């Protein structure tokens, strides 16, 4: 019997943990189509009440930065601490930031 995993496309799963928060990437799974991926995401990733909303995205649809471009992409930011809003006191009412 052939391995079904090799035939089913990969999906990335994003879960919103509660209203007002953004969807966060939480993992991936194999499924034959979007509806099945949603159902499986429900079973695999929301078993402990982690979510109120699920997105699934075909992994193939994601364009990713290359690991070898890490130096040119991200290192230049290391010495620019003035870009962090750490010099301000955030009021409590602002909440998630």
């Amino acid at each position, binding site marked *: 019997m052939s391995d079904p995993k090799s035939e089913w496309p990969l999906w990335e799963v994003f879960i919103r943990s509660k209203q007002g928060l953004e969807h966060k990437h939480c993992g991936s799974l194999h499924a034959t189509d979007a509806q*099945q991926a949603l159902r499986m995401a429900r*079973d695999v990733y929301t*078993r402990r009440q982690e979510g109120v909303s699920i997105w699934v995205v075909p992994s193939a649809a994601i364009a990713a930065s290359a690991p070898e471009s890490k130096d040119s992409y991200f290192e230049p930011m290391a010495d620019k601490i003035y870009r962090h809003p750490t010099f301000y006191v955030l009021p409590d009412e602002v909440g998630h930031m």
Partner: protein
Amino acid sequence: MDSQGEPTMERAQQIEYLLRLADSPLVLAHRLSQWCGHGPVLEEDLALANISLDLLGQARLLYQHAAALAGGDASEDRYAYFRDVPEFGNFTMLELPNSGVASAGAGDPDYAFTIVRNAMYAAWQVELWQRLTDSSDAQLAAIAAKSLKEARYHLEHAADWMIRFGDGTDESHARAQRALDSLVPYASEWFVPDALDAEACAAGVGIDCAAIRSPWLERMHTIAGEATLRWPGDSEFCSTGKLGRHSEHLGYLLTEMQSVARAHPDAAW
């Protein structure tokens, strides 16, 4: 329970009715738990474990309610682990091995058989729990409201797969059709009331089980139609699990399920 909400049903009968309602989800939960670690893919392995735990949760709530009515040393564990085959009132279909009817328990587990059985039972549960939300037994009505949401998901899961199997490859279609052909006769007892069903229905505690046959059939015909499966013709066969007369498979199932509790009676965990 206050006098207004008191169902006009003998307490012993009410307890028996609750146990009958509880035994079916317990037994199917055990059958589904046997897939754990053996599912066709990881995602389905988890889905079946979730469904199994939902059913176990339903059984526990019903056993706890029955134990509270019974008083004394009655408890969910005593009901689940210390009763024997003739005292179980689960439907025969749910105790059948995962390998199917013809395998006599010896074959490999068949996912089509599990899926078709789950679809049929979940569709029945949806009708059951919908109606029991109006039960005169307030606790049972609350359990029904909680369980209805679970049953709807179980049906969605199983119907989705049943359609994929039926409308899939020649092999998956043949397996789904074989499962449907062998399982449908076992659904007959779900809709044939005995004295206890009639009493529970008259008291407003239980449902009219004959009345849910037609909405159940309609739902199943729709799913089978979409799955391009042929609905089998009527059969004379009517199983007797809810009356305590079971197939040979329940004894083996209980022996395994009850072994730990019986080896260590009164152990706490």
